């Protein structure tokens, strides 16, 4: 076997190669320094992705986080409101609990803009709790290095049987303190 491409190494890392291909790659990387290095990097990448706190949390992830030692503060914010959250070395994660009428929503999209209205980032098809009418956004202290995030204007757009429409505008004020 010659060195496979990175896509095959990704499939190996996720356990998604066929049994024969998997055995062939194992026999190969035991004798190939380059493929060992690539497979080790890929393993680390997948572990890092799984350890990364997503920007919008599922209910299950929120519960796990709140049960952990971090116990992040959660701040409720309703459409049209401005709210503040403090992020520092002793409070590395904060949760925005954005309330919105989400009954019947099939999909929710999130957009963040800076104070001048420039789009910072968009997140499509994010997790949401339709029953409670909540979208939970996690912010971390290291976001302080991202331009425009300190005073962030956020919009939630819901898609339901009637089409897509904004369901909430929020101003999220991040008070970053030096670590």
């Amino acid at each position, binding site marked *: 076997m010659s060195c496979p491409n990175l896509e095959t190494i*990704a499939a190996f890392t*996720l356990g*998604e190669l066929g049994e024969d291909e998997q055995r062939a790659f194992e026999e190969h990387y035991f004798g190939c320094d380059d493929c060992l290095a690539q497979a080790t990097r890929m393993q680390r990448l997948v572990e890092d992705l799984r350890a*990364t706190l997503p920007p919008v949390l599922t209910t299950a992830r929120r519960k796990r986080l709140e*049960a952990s030692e971090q116990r992040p503060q959660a701040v409720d914010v309703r459409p049209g409101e401005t709210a503040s959250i403090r992020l520092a070395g002793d409070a590395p994660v904060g949760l925005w609990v954005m309330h919105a009428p989400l009954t019947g929503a099939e999909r929710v999209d999130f957009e963040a803009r800076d104070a001048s209205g420039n789009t910072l980032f968009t*997140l499509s*098809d994010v997790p949401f709790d339709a029953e409670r009418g909540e979208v939970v956004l996690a912010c971390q202290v290291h976001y302080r290095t991202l331009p425009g995030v300190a005073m962030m204007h956020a919009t939630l757009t819901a898609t339901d049987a009637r089409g897509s429409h904004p369901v909430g505008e929020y101003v999220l004020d991040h008070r970053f303190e030096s670590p």
Partner: protein
Amino acid sequence: MALEVSDAELAALVASRESQAEAALFTRFAPRIELYGLKHLRSRPAADDLVQQVMLIVLEAVRGGKVEDTSKLASFVLGTCRNVTWDLRRAAGRDERLAREVAVVSHPVAPPSQSEVDVLRLRGCMGRLPEREANIVRMSFLEDQTAEEVGLRLGLTPGNVRVIRHRALAKLSGCLQTKEAS
């Protein structure tokens, strides 16, 4: 000790009790065994255990001249990995059954191990992915959804989701290597 010797030469040095040869053997094979363990045993402590057990068996065999063809030392190490993994899995199955019987249930939350630089680098590379690939990575790894669940949301077959996910991971890995080098 220089590592540019072949497997057979390294085995000969270990058998002749050359100082540092055993350390060189460990340096060469431990990362391979660890990766194998992570893949098959799915936990870092179990993978570390595998490294120790396999290296002990391999060292004893090499010291005692029991490896028939030392030019195929890598195959010998891999074969030992397979055998020890089989034993460890069998023992783990027994331990799991015992744990269930005494109802020991825990849900540990692994603390994030990444540095701030790691996180920002990964975020930067995620931002360069095409939207569909970024969404599939996010749903798969950050929101713990299966390929079937992601496929349902995006109107794709689970097989398609897996293929796109492999492509996205390949791009992310390439991007991270470029950023590390710069």
